[in-house]
């Protein structure tokens, strides 16, 4: 009885999508390490162009995480919008403000560094503590391959009005950016 219970528990632990997800876990570990290093370099590097290029690494890693969570459409959108458009916008912003392209020591405000470290550490402790206390061993339930279909049904079904409002917001942001940035 006890032995069969133990075997069943072991089977449950192994069949609850734990054993098949070992490659996914390895991929997650590698991506997470690269992302954390790159994010750290984004906020600490002395070269502003390097910060933009490290941001590319972080954003691509977020896309890989979306793929691991079987959110293909969001992953492709992430790569297209962020890596394709927003990074180019950042590089244009760096160029147009004539930022120092080489190494420069005045990108940081040293007086704010203790406050920044304190804010980051406190929020990390609070966030990580609450996450660990709440979802200690919840498995991500990844289901069928119909994720894109479900997303499109949601966007053009119950979320149609927010979607249209969002397109108006994008138009307003476009016109606002042109009005702000044009010369006269």
């Amino acid at each position, binding site marked *: 009885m006890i032995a069969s219970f133990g075997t069943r528990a072991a089977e449950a632990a192994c069949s609850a999508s734990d054993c098949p997800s070992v490659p996914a876990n390895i991929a997650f570990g590698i991506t997470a390490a690269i992302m954390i290093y790159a*994010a750290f370099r984004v906020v600490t590097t002395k070269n502003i162009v390097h910060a933009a290029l490290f941001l590319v690494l972080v954003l691509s890693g977020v896309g890989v*995480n979306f793929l691991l969570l079987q959110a293909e459409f969001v992953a492709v959108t992430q790569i297209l919008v962020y890596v394709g458009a927003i990074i180019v916008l950042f590089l244009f912003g760096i160029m147009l403000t004539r930022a120092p392209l080489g190494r420069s020591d005045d990108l940081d405000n040293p007086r704010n560094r203790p406050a920044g470290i304190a804010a980051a550490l406190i929020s990390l402790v609070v966030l990580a503590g609450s996450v660990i206390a709440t979802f200690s061993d919840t498995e*991500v339930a990844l289901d069928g391959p119909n994720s894109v279909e479900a997303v499109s049904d949601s966007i053009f079904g119950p979320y149609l009005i927010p979607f249209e409002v969002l397109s108006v917001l994008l138009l307003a942001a476009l016109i606002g950016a042109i009005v702000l940035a044009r010369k006269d």
Partner: protein
Amino acid sequence: MLLNQFLLLSAVLFCIGIYGVVVRRNGVMVLMSIELILNAVNINLVAFGANTGTPMGQVFSLFVIAVAAAEVGVGLAIVLLIYRNRHSIDIDELDELKG
């Protein structure tokens, strides 16, 4: 895969972004740190959506991506305007509101 691993990664990215927003003094770098924060939120949304088995998380993260694109456009326009008026984008020098 555990839900926790995605949530912890996103918490770490969020806190690194907060550090960047507080410490950086270049306007463009502050916008980059805000992008880090928004991406951490997106990972959270998609992970919770996968956990509940509904596409809502993905829909909301798509909305966040679109709003972030609009935010970067307007933000960079504002930074350009500041540069044109003051020939510097050091946000520590923008203290006209200080009494």
